[in-house]
């Protein structure tokens, strides 16, 4: 038995497999976390790029959103662990799954940098080009996370 197979057979994972509604609730919470996480990060990026919420500042949006961004990330990760464990051998065999984790880590780090730096960036007369580039990369990374997620379920056959 591989490590992933034994993970799939631990008692708490078996309990999830025996309860379709527990599984459904975990999926729903995972989606809610992902949606809130991606939207709150993407909107700050879009504001920095001048493509959203132009009547206010990106700094104010970031301050308003940041607790939700990190709460949502926590929710997505906490629900993602049992969802992964439930299908561990098939997910672990799909390279998109590991790519997704790496992309997610990169996107989260970049969003953290954007939240840190957005204040100073907006205090300069115009948002620096490097800041806009970072915002664009962050936006693309979050989109790639969604792309990889879709491919994981596609190749893992769930």
């Amino acid at each position, binding site marked *: 038995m591989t490590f992933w197979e034994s993970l799939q057979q631990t008692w708490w994972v078996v309990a999830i497999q025996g309860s379709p509604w527990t599984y459904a609730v975990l999926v729903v919470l995972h989606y809610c976390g992902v949606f*809130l996480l991606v939207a709150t990060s993407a*909107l700050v990026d879009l504001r920095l790029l001048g493509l959203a919420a132009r009547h206010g500042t990106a700094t104010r949006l970031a301050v308003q959103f940041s607790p939700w961004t990190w709460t949502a990330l926590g929710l997505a990760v906490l629900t993602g662990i049992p969802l992964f464990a439930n299908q561990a051998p098939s997910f672990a065999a799909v390279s998109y799954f590991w790519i997704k984790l790496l992309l997610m880590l990169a996107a989260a780090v970049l969003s953290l940098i954007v939240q840190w730096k957005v204040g100073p960036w907006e205090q300069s007369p115009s948002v620096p080009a490097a800041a806009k580039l970072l915002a664009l990369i962050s936006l693309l990374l979050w989109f790639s996370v969604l792309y990889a997620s879709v491919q994981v379920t596609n190749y893992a056959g769930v």
Partner: protein
Amino acid sequence: METLVAFCEWLENTSWALAVSGAFELYPYLRLTHFTGLALWVGTTAVVDLRLLGWGRRREGADQLSAQLLVWNWIGLGITFLGGFLLFVGTASGYIINPAFQIKMLALLTTVALRVTIQRNAPVWGRSPDAPALARLAGGVELTLWIGMILAAVRIPNY
């Protein structure tokens, strides 16, 4: 209902619907479209609802948030609908008789009506830091409907 089923049968046999349902390699991209739209739509809806409920930070009022996010909220709906409709057409008559799908569509219509109501009233509701009871109710109901709608969507394959 029979008219609706007949319409769905006609829909899934149109040449373009057949083209979509035959293109299996397209499905991951349709799901990606659907989920990208959902992230924008649900996310920008939820932050306004949470603000109406008075949860989280109060740097922005619900009136400002609603106005600031309005454009991307509707862009999100548009992208979601585009992906969702193309996912639906291939097996339209199967979806339309699925109870979980029916619940999802009813919840969808209700949330869209609520969304318009909240956006119209946000300038008044969001003026004071604490939204009136009716506004908190609207925000709470919308959030609950969304969770129910996603649950219904997740359960579709089980029926």
